């Protein structure tokens, strides 16, 4: 049941995109996010589409795999589209009872849908082409300047990497607990939302208890291996920011500035 989750999944590879520095990729996604909210015309999404397709092709990520990652946002997508479709005032095209669809509504709904889809696609490209450790290393480096003003950059990165490490373990455990509760006659599939939510309690309680025990043991194992925060810590895999990284970062930056102001 939880097997479909592709968040944080990584597809190992040797492509140009795979080999880019994680900082380059994180910054590119940031630029992309800002740029895409500046687009004013529907046709300018052709530009974004071309860019996204190029990245997919260069990274050699199977399209089907990428589209599967859109499944979790499907509900949000429908909700957003519906909201904009029916609630935007303007020139009325169709009227269904109390609801009306406007030209502006259609425009806005498609804008929002496209933005969401491209955002998720681009963000999953980041995680699909970047090893989790390298992603968190990149984040730590990017946040390092803010450490001076008290942002716990190293701790945040460590938390994220531990979370990524334990997601599959906890998913497995949830599966096991659900099976155990089902064997005892628990029913997760029928009833209204409230009843279903209530039937999750016997899953969540043991899951939390075990997660706390795991956290405790993990902390001890980390201490036993001489972990004491970022102080005096070196890394086996060091990030190298190459010339190509600079070019890609600047390229993405200027493309998105262009998109923001001119498209």
């Amino acid at each position: 049941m939880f097997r479909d989750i592709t968040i944080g999944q990584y597809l190992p590879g040797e492509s140009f995109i795979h080999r880019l520095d994680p900082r380059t990729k994180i910054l590119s996604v940031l630029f992309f996010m800002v740029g895409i909210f500046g687009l004013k015309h529907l046709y300018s999404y052709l530009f974004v589409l071309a860019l996204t397709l190029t990245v997919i092709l260069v990274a050699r990520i199977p399209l089907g795999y990428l589209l599967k990652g859109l499944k979790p946002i499907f509900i949000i997508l429908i909700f957003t589209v519906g909201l904009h479709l029916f609630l935007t005032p303007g020139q009325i095209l169709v009227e269904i009872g109390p609801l009306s669809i406007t030209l502006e509504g259609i425009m806005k709904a498609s804008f929002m849908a496209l933005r969401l889809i491209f955002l998720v696609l681009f963000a999953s490209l980041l995680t699909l082409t970047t090893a989790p450790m390298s992603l968190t290393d990149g984040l730590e480096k990017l946040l390092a300047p803010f450490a001076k003003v008290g942002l716990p950059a190293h701790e945040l990165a460590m938390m994220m990497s531990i979370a990524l490490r334990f997601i599959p373990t906890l998913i497995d455990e949830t599966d096991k607990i659900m099976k155990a509760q089902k064997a005892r006659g628990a029913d997760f599939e029928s009833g209204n939302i409230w009843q279903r939510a209530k039937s999750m309690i016997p899953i969540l309680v043991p899951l939390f208890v075990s997660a706390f025990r795991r956290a405790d043991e993990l902390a001890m194992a980390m201490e036993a291996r001489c972990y004491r925060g970022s102080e005096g810590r070196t890394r086996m895999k060091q990030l190298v920011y190459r010339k190509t990284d600079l070019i890609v970062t600047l390229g993405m930056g200027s493309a998105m500035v262009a998109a923001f102001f001119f498209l």
Partner: protein
Amino acid sequence: MIKIDNVIHTYKKHSDEEVQALCGISLDIQEGEFLVIIGHNGSGKSTLAKHLNTLLIPSEGQVLIDGLDSTDPDMVWNIRSRVGMVFQNPDNQLIATTVEDDVAFGCENLGIESGEIRARVDDALATVGMAGFGNKEPHYLSGGQKQRVAIAGVIAMRPKYLVLDEPTAMLDPRGRQEVMETIHRLNKEEGLTIVHITHYMEEASQADRVVVMEDGKIVAQGCPREIFSQVKLLKSLRMDVPPMTELASILNEAGLEVDKTLLTVEEMVDALC
């Protein structure tokens, strides 16, 4: 050498209630030896193990690791880099998302330079028979493989002592064998001192020395043959005895004289025929 001198450890619970988990333990652990600690649940084995690398410090008494006092806060990291520790649950001691990053974790904390870490990681993975698994995610490994990765992560830090707290308890027979072969090889070939805590008597029977704990005290110690021949004592401590040793003891009681210290079926066959 690790010198444990009259150590008492008291856990304080929230309700001001105190539990004395170690009641005056004295034990010397020699370099290069393979020491096994057995004892019933709650006898204080884990508490003792955690004293060996300053995860716990004694309430009374002293633990000296190569002469370094475990109560000295300046020595904590020095001691922890000498005494490596492997825990029971393989899932809860792997930190990183790939095998090689996990093995590198300890070395990174020691501040070793990047090229040297890479060499040590490859070396450690080869030693535990996991070469070629560097890029795998821990999630996809078997229990025995995870536990060997955990061992690799510790030996990459080049410790002198390796303390293992029931590393085989959650493994299937095959995983157990993999882990036991690995630590025996580390002991023989790399000269690592092993302190192995277990509930499995066949693992204890391969040790140089066995220490039996009960209620926070050491109640017996000696070579496996001496220990297991004390069938009555072990039974009274609710512990298993190797089946052949138990049979030998029964035969002796029945009047047939066989060697009380024999451990295996082969030895029993030799003794009888």
